[in-house]
């Protein structure tokens, strides 16, 4: 198919994590002098793929080939020896060192540091890129696009032959994207193989030569950019079967519980919609679209710049999570372990924690009532544990999530915000969480569900709002649900007339 030999090839690579298959018997070739884009939904396996090429993750089976060298287990060092350099979304730079020092980091150059030489070499690289940047300036004083340039220069100075870029345009403005693309083309013309990951389909047509579409960890199609268009790519991404079954339930129309009016802040702009009683309201969007940020705004955990919230038609003033809880809003956060629970504390301690004041008399905790509360909710949510005195860190992910849910329910929440409710949870527990969410909605709770799992969104939601870059792109009613439409909205290709 190609005249030149591939620089790196994956052969039948499979990688599974507990409960998910991240990559399924995947084979792909990356050629020199080519910008090869990887496209797929969240969870399609792109990140796992680049981690495997970088040696950060070991595949369960299959091999990685660099020319005629075949690796079944690849270490980060071996990957680097073969010319692999990765520019992650989170930069790997040291803020307190200069740009030049960062570029030279990790090189062995004798006993003493030759700052002059370092800076001259950095300047040469920046000149090649056509970028004005003082090599002596500290990285923490640079803008994110300048930091990215430093990352790229670092990779180049390591003689990268395979350059992997994960969402490189995410932190950049339009003009900065242009100069990034210029640099990328420069490398391509020098024979570097560039593996490019981006959610922004539009820019792929500008920079990529070839696009591989992944879905559920499997290879779907390989297209030359000239032979395809956006619509085709999206339909390739979404040709996904719905495997899981979702609990059926009646969906009667009801009045609004919470209304968001022109909310601005925390990176979100002018967001208005209302969530009804007994409804599961899905929130779709790509990573960084501002969904978690919106949840934090509603929950009082981030500062609201302008806009207002109404509950049951009355204005709500929420300045802290405490205000939110008082008004019946509960959050089940995305990062269970960091934000949701106290791992070193027992289950009953965790469940009662947010409502501990209400079960205290004269500041003294009523232990009997605490035990009753913990027993009630652990039975309700079927938390599986030998004892409620068990530390939460000894529970499985699914049971930990139930503990977080239990403590939120114990505060009498009318509106529950689930941020990625089933992330890192095995299939059986996932079904249970779905059942619980459905039961709660049937009892009249309103649920706002942020999810990056398309199947879950389509299966569980009554309506789905789609966000892109901090803006509301549209709200879909159940008959309008389609993966394609959601992805088009989330990618910013189309923008619906918003009717809330």
């Amino acid at each position: 198919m190609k005249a030149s030999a591939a620089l790196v090839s994956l052969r039948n690579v499979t990688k599974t994590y507990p409960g998910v298959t991240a990559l399924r018997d995947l084979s792909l070739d990356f050629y020199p002098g080519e910008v090869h884009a990887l496209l797929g939904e969240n969870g399609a396996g792109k990140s796992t793929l680049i981690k495997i090429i970088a040696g950060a993750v070991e595949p369960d089976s299959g091999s990685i080939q660099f020319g005629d060298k075949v690796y079944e287990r690849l270490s980060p060092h071996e990957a680097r020896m073969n010319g692999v350099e990765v520019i992650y979304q989170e930069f790997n730079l040291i803020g307190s060192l200069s740009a030049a020092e960062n570029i030279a980091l990790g090189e062995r150059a004798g006993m003493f540091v030759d700052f002059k030489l370092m800076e001259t070499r950095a300047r040469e690289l920046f000149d090649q890129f056509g970028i004005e940047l003082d090599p002596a300036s500290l990285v923490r004083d640079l803008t994110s696009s300048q930091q990215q340039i430093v990352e790229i220069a670092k990779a180049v100075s390591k003689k990268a032959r395979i350059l992997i870029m994960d969402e490189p345009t995410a932190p950049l403005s339009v003009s900065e994207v242009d100069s990034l693309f210029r640099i990328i083309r420069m490398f391509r013309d020098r024979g570097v193989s560039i593996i490019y990951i981006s959610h922004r389909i539009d820019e792929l047509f500008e920079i990529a030569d070839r696009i591989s579409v992944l879905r559920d960890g499997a290879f779907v199609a390989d297209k030359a950019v000239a032979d395809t268009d956006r619509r085709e790519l999206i339909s390739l991404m979404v040709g996904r079967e719905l495997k899981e079954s979702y609990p059926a339930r009646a969906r009667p129309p009801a009045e609004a519980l919470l209304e968001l009016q022109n909310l601005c802040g925390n990176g979100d702009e002018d967001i208005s919609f209302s969530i009804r009683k007994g409804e599961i309201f899905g929130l779709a969007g790509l990573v960084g679209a501002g969904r978690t940020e919106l949840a934090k705004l509603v929950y009082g955990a981030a500062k609201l710049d302008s806009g207002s919230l109404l509950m049951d038609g009355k204005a709500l003033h929420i300045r802290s999570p405490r205000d939110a809880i008082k008004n019946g809003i509960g959050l089940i956060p995305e990062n269970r372990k960091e934000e949701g629970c106290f791992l070193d504390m027992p289950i009953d301690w965790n469940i009662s924690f947010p409502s501990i004041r209400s079960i205290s008399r004269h500041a003294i905790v009523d232990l009997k009532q605490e035990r009753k509360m913990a027993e009630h909710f652990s039975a309700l949510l079927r938390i599986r544990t030998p004892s409620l005195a068990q530390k939460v860190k000894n529970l499985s992910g699914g049971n930990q999530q139930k503990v977080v849910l239990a403590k939120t329910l114990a505060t009498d929440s009318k509106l529950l915000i689930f941020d990625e409710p089933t992330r890192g949870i095995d299939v059986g527990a996932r079904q249970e969480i779905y059942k619980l969410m459905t039961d709660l909605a049937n009892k009249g709770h309103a649920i706002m569900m942020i999810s990056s799992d398309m199947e879950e969104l389509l299966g569980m939601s009554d309506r789905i709002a789609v966000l892109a870059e901090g803006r509301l792109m549209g709200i879909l009613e159940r008959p309008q649900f389609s993966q394609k439409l959601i992805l088009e909205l989330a990618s910013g290709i189309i923008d619906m007339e918003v009717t809330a």
Partner: protein
Amino acid sequence: MNGKNWLGMIPAILKKFAIVFVLLGLLVFFAALSPYFFTIENLTNIFVQQSYVIIAAVGLSFVMISGGMDLSIGYQMSLVGVATAAMMKWYNIPLPVSLALGVLLGICLGLGNGIASIKLKVHPLIVTLGTMTVFQGLSYIVSRQSVILNLPATFKFIGQGYVFGFIPFSVILMFLTVGFASFILNKTYLGRYIYAIGGNEEATRLAGVNVGMVKLIVFGLCGFFVAISAMVLFARSGSAASSTGPGTEFNCITAAVLGGISFKGGEGKMWGLVTGVFILGVLGNGMQLIGMGTYAQYIVKGLVLLSAVGFDVYQKSVRTIRHHAKITEAA
């Protein structure tokens, strides 16, 4: 079946109360070496000597359990002590008023530390490293670098007096302090909040707790207990100088760590703290009795701390490894 269970729990009990056994071991050890050690007189002596350390350490442990640190407590004691003495002796303020103002001053110093670390968003370790020097300067200005002699007898009672002729008043204060602190930490929702902030501050905030307010209360409580401790210490010496107090902070930190109050916060019990203080106290007293010099004592105390911390870290890693092994087996 029951008997078997009980026997099976012995290793766990040994582990959990390891430092208590260390203390008992030390008691036996010194009793064997010195005939004077295990006398009522000497044991009372140890209690009296350690009472002010325990009271201050209780204050510090509130801060440490909430994930903070207070290095300034030694100079807080110094400042509170000389200020109270100056009020009584130089300004002729009545004793009860002087005491009340002294305790109030302690609370204010604690709150100052709290406000500074919340407003500056700097870890209390750094903040109190700074305020420690500020309190030192203030203390020497208040005392005019002199020793305030002949404190009133009523004041000295706090540190030297006996109730019913045989119970030292300072030891009563010590028990009250430990009881009060245990009550706050174990029985009240404030106690839950203090452990929670030390364990996971962000989760605490998201659970609707006013984290800043709790931290302020914690520092205020610390200042309160440190002031009481200062009263006991200064009353025992009967005179007031700015050099009295400093050094207590490291005694307290050592005892707290020995007693299982971790640096990262979120865990620790009062019985552990008390045991920690007594291990250090018994070591000091016992080594004195068998004729070891002060400097040799420093070395032993330091080594005891290191082995206690090492043991703790080792235990935790063993537990983690076993736990992982269990998970792997299950999977």
